[in-house]
């Protein structure tokens, strides 16, 4: 059955009815609705699957600069009235927020391409068939496949008392699998994400994971230390995303960020390899993002890093006004430019190094250098004299994306990847594979 979500007309009607209850000086309504479908498999069969429909409405009420929010997932008249009253009651009670700038009036939004009929209409049977396209070849080769198909189709809307109304729809699918050898000595992973289900190829994905599982049997230990690495795109996204999440301008200006410097921030400074350029763009065909944020502020194309130089930090409305800049929106997804090399060429050009499929359990260690720790997982291989010679045991790293992106040697063409560690649907990310030197590994793991 097609995914359920609130249409534009319904959203407008609900928002209008809600705002009609408002007695506040200023008010904003956000409405989100979605059908979340998923099929999970383990040991070559579906383990759980489900569909859930939910919708929430959040009201922000302001009396002068006294602001508070309340939300509900019930949309009958009494609930709408009640949630407005709750927000207003809370707003009257809290102290003034000196940084509140009031709500926005009507805005212009770019068109996005994040909605796909093929994804919205996906049936449980089609999902089970996609899973079978992975489990059957895995089982036929005596391997054990586990994985997850996650789909969200929904809409979001924002309306204000000042006449703003924004509405957008999106559907995203994320499919991942981990294939393990029965003796527990090998494991391979593959994953893909798209807005349009038709762009995914579960069979081809299965082949990648199966091949890695077979190649990764009986890994041997290598010494931790500084290594030349070839990071496949998912591993690159794991690292680059850490830097994108650290771009807050206020933290930089206040001296609590890698991007801080005496008297201000590092905008304009070159601190990465010349080839590193990163943008976010709601109108992107391959990595669309929402047309607006939760305040109804339009998302626009933003150039964050250009040829290794910091071009922008993330400014919310308040900090932008205070610093005399334009608000930027937050880069939920991003696109990184790449190069012309293939992963095979990177391997051939490597005398001794490690090929990394993906990372796991990435956690912050030191915000002063955006230093994180994590481990390699599900396909780590030794490269010697231009070819993969053996699987290696996984390693723990302590590294910063800033250092990694300074040490780039080669890059591939960028591709859309499955970016979340959890396999859940996540914002669109497009990155290349990267060969980099002096990547810091600190210890060995016995985990397969």
């Amino acid at each position, binding site marked *: 059955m097609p995914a359920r979500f609130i249409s534009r007309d319904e959203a407008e009607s609900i928002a209008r009815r809600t705002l009609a209850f408002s007695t506040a000086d200023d008010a904003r309504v956000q409405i989100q609705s979605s059908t*979340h479908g998923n099929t999970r*498999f*383990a*040991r*070559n*069969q*579906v*383990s*759980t*699957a*489900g*569909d*859930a429909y*939910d*919708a929430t409405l959040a009201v922000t009420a302001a009396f002068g600069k006294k602001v*508070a929010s*309340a939300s*509900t*997932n*019930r949309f*009958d008249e*009494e*609930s709408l009235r009640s949630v407005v009253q*709750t927000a207003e009651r*809370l707003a009257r*009670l809290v102290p003034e927020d000196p*940084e509140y700038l009031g709500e926005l009036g009507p805005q212009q939004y770019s068109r996005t391409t994040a909605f796909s009929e093929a994804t919205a209409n996906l049936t*449980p*049977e089609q*999902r*089970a068939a996609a*899973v079978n396209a992975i*489990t059957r070849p895995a089982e036929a080769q005596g391997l054990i496949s586990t994985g*997850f198909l996650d789909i969200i189709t929904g809409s979001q809307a924002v309306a204000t008392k000042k006449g703003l109304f924004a509405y957008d729809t999106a559907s995203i699918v994320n499919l991942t*699998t981990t294939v393990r050898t029965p003796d527990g000595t090998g494991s391979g*992973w593959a994953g893909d994400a798209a807005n349009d289900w038709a762009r995914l190829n579960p069979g081809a994905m299965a082949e990648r994971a199966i091949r890695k599982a077979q190649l990764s049997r009986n890994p041997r230990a290598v010494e931790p230390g500084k290594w030349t690495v070839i990071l496949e795109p998912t591993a690159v996204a794991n690292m680059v995303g850490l830097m994108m999440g650290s771009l807050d301008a206020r933290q930089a200006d*206040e*001296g609590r960020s890698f991007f801080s*410097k*005496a008297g201000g921030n590092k905008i304009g400074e070159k601190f990465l390899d010349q080839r590193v350029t990163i943008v976010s763009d709601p109108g992107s065909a391959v990595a669309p993002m929402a047309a607006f944020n939760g305040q109804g502020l339009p998302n626009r194309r933003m150039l964050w890093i250009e040829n290794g130089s910091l071009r922008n930090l993330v400014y919310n409305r308040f900090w932008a006004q205070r610093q005399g800049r334009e608000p930027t929106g937050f880069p939920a997804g991003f696109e990184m430019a790449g190069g012309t090399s293939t992963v095979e060429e990177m391997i051939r050009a490597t005398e001794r190094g490690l090929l990394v499929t993906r990372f796991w*359990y990435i*956690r912050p*260690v*030191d*915000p002063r250098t955006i230093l994180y*720790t*994590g*481990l390699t*997982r599900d396909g780590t291989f030794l490269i010697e004299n231009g070819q993969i010679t053996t699987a290696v045991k996984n390693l*723990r790293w302590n590294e*910063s994306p800033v250092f990694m992106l300074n040490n780039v040697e080669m890059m591939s063409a960028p591709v859309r990847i499955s970016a979340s*560690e*959890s*396999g*859940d649907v996540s914002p669109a990310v497009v990155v290349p594979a990267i060969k980099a030197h002096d990547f810091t590994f600190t*210890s060995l*793991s*016995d*985990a*397969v």
Partner: protein
Amino acid sequence: MRRREFILHGTAAAAGLAAGSALLPRALDARPAREDWLADPATRELAMRAVDAARQAGATYADVRISRNRSQSLGTREQQITSFNDSDTYGFGVRVLAGGAWGFAASRDVTPDEVVRVARQAVAQARANAATVKRPIELAPAERVADGKWTSAMQVDPFTIAIEQKVDLLLRANAEALKVQGARFVTSSMFFLKQEKSFASTDGSWIEQTYYRAYPSMTITAVSADRSDFQSRQSTDIAPRGMGYEHVTAARLVETAGRWAEEAVAKLSAKPVQPGRYDLVLLPTHLWLTIHESIAHPTELDRIMGFEANYAGTSFVTPPADYLGKFRYGPDFMNIQGERSTPGTLSATGWDDEGVKPDEFLIVRNGVVNDLQTTREQAPWLADWYRQQGRPVSSHGNSYAQNWSDVQFQRMPNVNLLPATSEVTLEELIGDVQDGILIDGDGSFSIDQQRYNAQFGGQVFKEIKNGRITGPLKDVAYQMRTPEFWNSMDAIGGRGTYFIGGSFFDGKGQPSQVNAVNHGSPAARFRRVNVINTGRRA
């Protein structure tokens, strides 16, 4: 909507139903009618209607959870409010077994039509999945609970406390922190949850439960005068709990904020640690997280059997037959308990999300693996071990879903390291250390997908020389391999050092869900652990 109107709307919504609608004269509309909706007989009628619909559609087993979550969060920085949100969500989920496979569907529209539609959708989902089934799912038996009721050990309902009082408390705590020279930024927050949850199943069970949770926290950041360094201290010695506002009062944020601020400032001038092997004295404010990652997660049976291989990972404790009763996790005095009964803890419950009353069990007994965490689906996988032990095949009650819209699956109970039977003090643990580090509070944490290799930071680090604390350290993290680490533990504190830490947001599963869990632990001492320096210049 008043009750009278509510009935009118509910009846209208049900008018289109075929046979069976007459059985629901007081059907619920898509919102709870009253604050006591959980005890309203109409709630039970709706749940039973969903159970019946699933059974009629061919389910061999079905359970239904109708729940309402109310949460409130309050955030501040320095002397201003940054957010104040009140959230309310209500809905239901139906889980079914059909053709030997699970199916699940959920909706926010808690109406007579919708519960039937969703129940049938769950069965259709199961039938679609049944095409892949090689081993049909079997459930361990569960006792029928005819009319179960349970509520958290809560004294003061946080939703009844005036907002001004909450705001005032946080702003006063922030002001205290900012009195400390060098403390430049402070954030503080409170988070409260009230969850009301019903459970009905084809086994004939009906359970009503109400949970309260509270989590106050602060983070203080000190910045050096020349802006070349900044250091933070989080209030990780205040753990979230399954309690009411009394937990916030007991946390004494205003009284403690100054100490946290001083500890943040002290880190700016603390001595960077020299990498090497040290004896570690780990306070329970820190050790709970190491227990969580290296013991609690590896002994989850779904993980051991490979069900989490694509995300949360597997476990080194596999296959179970090679470990149960054989594998030495740590020294003889090491006992790890699973329980969901300690009042005021996050995992405490009367019954789990399969209607099973949880028991207390020893995961590690005298240093050896003794048992694993189970649900009704998983307990039969350990039938041989239970038979050897002369125990019935039954679930430990470790099923949990974060909300009505999520399917329940295996989540950990409270997993505790039991204290020494004698009263060993912290001073005694420190007194026998020549060259070591004391770690207070949890910090950075990461562990591999089979739970061998881990790295843990902390909040406050103190150098120990010749049995005495000598001064602050910074940039400390230890790396370990789980079996060696726990076997390097040579002493634990007594009940006097015991503290219950925990997490509100422990993630696992696909789609990922969070579980709130506490871990009790005494202070403990570990010999010759590998310590690294995490400081690095840009």
